[in-house]
């Protein structure tokens, strides 16, 4: 080409609009069946693996006891050998397979048979390789190898609407099918799926995915997750309705409520997201105006999270009015169950606080509540963790002071009744009642070295607007009124600290092993070994958080697995 001809060509190319390249995920989802009940999408595996391999966690994990034990296992060796053996047979390598074939986007869609009949179920696998030629060679090598080994009899070319696809004929009259649609490879055990794909590819617009499944992923807030299992609620409506209609009498109330939630659900997905930590979640989108999805996000975290000590082994906290929670639970129960809950409250609290004051007391309880487990104190022989329960008691109501007084009397009555009943039955192991002042509050506790395990002294107090009950009065004294929290953002529900649990097991291994062994008739050495192995297995993890997030119609329930070292730099 001469210089004179080259210049206009470059100019023309420069003036053309930039081509819009669809993301590999979008290319795959564009041709996936729109009515599938489930669509599993795995995307950017190459990047995730690359980040993981250079992460602090990857450098650190093999040096841990658990990592050493796991990576030295014959199973890891067998896995690597098997994958390498197959790759060798197919003329590739695991790295190349991930880089060129599987690293961008892989999807699997599934449609159950009508009425759940497995005979008519359908599935389709879609792969968007970075290098289509690499996958073409791989498929050719696979066909060739499997023909030689007798797994496949022949690969026969077919056409549909003038478009080619292949049938892999197998012994026994079975077959599976594959085709290429542009850069997307499709495979199915069902010929109709491949034919449907060809038809769909010719009809749908190039950007169809953006308005379909990708839009759904975006609404659910999972468009960048490493793996997403999209659930199409409408594909399962009939089964959910049938289940509700056929439910047992004691389950019917719950199933009907669940059916209402389901109808109000517009989209749902399970997802795995990988960053510094790993997230496993369920995302839900409610229909506009639907009074459906439970535990809608957008609420506030319990203020009591601020009172949970950093070294807590376990904590759960929420923000519900006791009365509202009882109503919600009652709605899930059959009539008999609802009456049982109501009568339990009325018969236990009613006589103590006075039946006329019961609604007042119930209204004053909440919304903040929390339960957590702390490591035991440092005194010799104490090995049982300390449990603390705290419940907000509102005093700003019209008869707030009266409600608080009634509640205090009720809890005190419970403590004293139990003490008297115990002392009556066990004259040799008497329990004493103890009162201590803690600022403006009075901490009441029960004390007995003979009746309680070491370190256990049930106690309670009404303190700073909270009812605090604990297995150690020191924990009640440590409790401080938390600062007010801002609404919105993530709402933590549960926290399990693997690091603190490990520290606890290591510090109190002897006491715990002896206690468990005596209780269950085991050898302390065996229990201690089990404890050590469990503690080792906890080493890679820091903590697990369960939380909700979202806004408006979107709710995500997330399990956040925080690892000891980051899974990316």
């Amino acid at each position, binding site marked *: 080409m001469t210089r004179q001809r080259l210049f206009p060509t470059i100019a023309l190319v420069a003036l053309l609009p930039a081509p819009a390249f669809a993301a590999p995920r979008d290319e795959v989802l564009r041709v996936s069946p729109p009515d599938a009940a489930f669509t599993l999408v795995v995307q950017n595996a190459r990047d995730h693996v690359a980040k993981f391999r250079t992460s602090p966690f990857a450098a650190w994990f093999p040096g841990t006891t658990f990592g050493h034990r796991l990576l030295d296992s014959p199973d890891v060796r067998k896995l690597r050998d098997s994958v390498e053996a197959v790759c060798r047979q197919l003329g590739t390598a695991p790295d190349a397979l991930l880089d060129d074939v599987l690293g961008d986007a892989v999807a699997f869609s599934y449609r159950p048979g009508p009425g*759940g009949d497995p005979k008519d179920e359908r599935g389709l696998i879609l792969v968007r390789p970075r290098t289509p030629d690499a996958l073409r060679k791989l498929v050719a090598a696979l066909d060739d190898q499997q023909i030689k080994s007798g797994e496949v009899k022949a690969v026969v070319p077919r056409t549909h609407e003038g478009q080619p696809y292949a049938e892999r004929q197998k012994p026994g009259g079975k077959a599976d099918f594959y085709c290429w649609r542009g850069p997307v490879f499709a495979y199915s055990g069902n010929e109709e799926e491949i034919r449907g794909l060809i038809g769909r590819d010719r009809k749908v617009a190039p950007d169809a995915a953006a308005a379909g499944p990708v839009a759904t992923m975006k609404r659910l807030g999972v468009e960048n997750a490493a793996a997403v299992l999209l659930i199409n609620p409408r594909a399962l409506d009939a089964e959910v309705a049938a289940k509700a209609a056929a439910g047992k009498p004691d389950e019917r109330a719950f199933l009907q409520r669940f059916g209402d939630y389901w109808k109000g659900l517009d989209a749902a997905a399970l997802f795995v997201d990988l960053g510094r930590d790993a997230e496993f979640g369920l995302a839900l989108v409610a229909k506009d105006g639907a009074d459906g999805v439970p535990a809608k996000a957008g609420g506030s975290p319990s203020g009591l999270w601020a009172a949970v000590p950093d070294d807590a082994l376990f904590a759960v906290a929420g923000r519900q009015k006791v009365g509202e929670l009882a109503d919600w639970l009652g709605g899930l129960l059959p009539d008999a169950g609802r009456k049982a809950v109501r009568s339990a409250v009325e018969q236990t609290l009613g006589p103590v606080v006075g039946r006329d004051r019961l609604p007042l007391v119930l209204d004053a309880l909440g919304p903040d509540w929390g339960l957590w487990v702390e490591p035991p104190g440092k005194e010799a022989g104490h090995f049982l963790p300390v449990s603390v329960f705290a419940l907000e008691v509102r005093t700003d109501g019209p008869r707030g002071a009266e409600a608080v007084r009634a509640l205090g009397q009720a809890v005190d009555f419970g403590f004293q009744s139990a003490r008297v009943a115990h002392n009556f039955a066990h004259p040799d192991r008497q329990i004493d009642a103890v009162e201590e002042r803690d600022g403006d509050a009075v901490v009441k506790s029960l004390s007995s070295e003979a009746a309680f395990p070491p370190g256990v002294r049930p106690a309670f107090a009404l303190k700073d607007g909270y009812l605090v009950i604990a297995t150690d009065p020191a924990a009640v004294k440590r409790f401080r009124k938390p600062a007010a929290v801002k609404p919105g953002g993530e709402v933590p529900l549960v926290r399990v600290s693997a690091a603190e649990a490990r520290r606890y097991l290591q510090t109190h291994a002897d006491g715990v092993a002896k206690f468990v062994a005596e209780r269950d008739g085991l050898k302390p050495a065996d229990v201690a070994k089990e404890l050590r192995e469990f503690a080792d297995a906890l080493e890679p993890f820091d903590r697990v958080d369960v939380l909700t997030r979202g806004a408006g119609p979107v709710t995500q329930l997330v399990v956040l697995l925080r690892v000891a070292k980051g899974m990316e730099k």
Partner: protein
Amino acid sequence: MTARDDFEPEPPVPPACRPTVDAVQRLLDGDGPPAAFAADPHLQACRDCSERVRAALLLRSAFAEGAVRPKAPPRATAAIVAAVALDRRTRIVRRRWSYAVCGMAVAACFTVAIGPWATPTRTVQLPAPVSPAKVETPTPPPARIDATLADAGDALENIGRRIAEPTAAAPRVFAPLADALAATPPANPFAADFAPAAEALADLPDAARSGLEPVTDSAYHAFAYLRDMGTPAAAPKN
């Protein structure tokens, strides 16, 4: 006297030999790659198993050759008969072509991810045959890819089990501690009043499970379909 009385009873197989004996079984069934033995460290330590493997490789080559009748080493027949007879019932041949896409995706990701951690594969030198017959061994037919991938799937499953195993100790450790706190005297004087309510609430998880069944069952079928797609033994899909 029955025909079976002509056979000596099978000696019990030590647990350490079981994986190798199973691999020999797979090889003889045409489902296992000969290369798999190169990575088996057990062969270095166990004379019986190295005999079994050598005999099986010899027999496999002879079958591949067809007309060639090799002279087997002295203990080959006994070793092969013992290997073939072993525990057929527990062997499950899985032919899952779909692993070629989805199984490979997981296995390849895992293999690449742990690549820098894994120790290099050891090449095991098989001991020299005791009295080898000169056999013209043609190139054996390629190993079945689905069987090798099924091995990878098994390994992946076992790795998951290994990771989960120590956590099984958690309930054994923490349940007694929780029980100890819950059973701490004095007993709840209102326990009897709460019992019916507690019973009603305890039914909720079952009801929830029941309500979710259409979703969980369909999800289960979806993954079973994914796993079995392409299985020769599966029902025709078209």
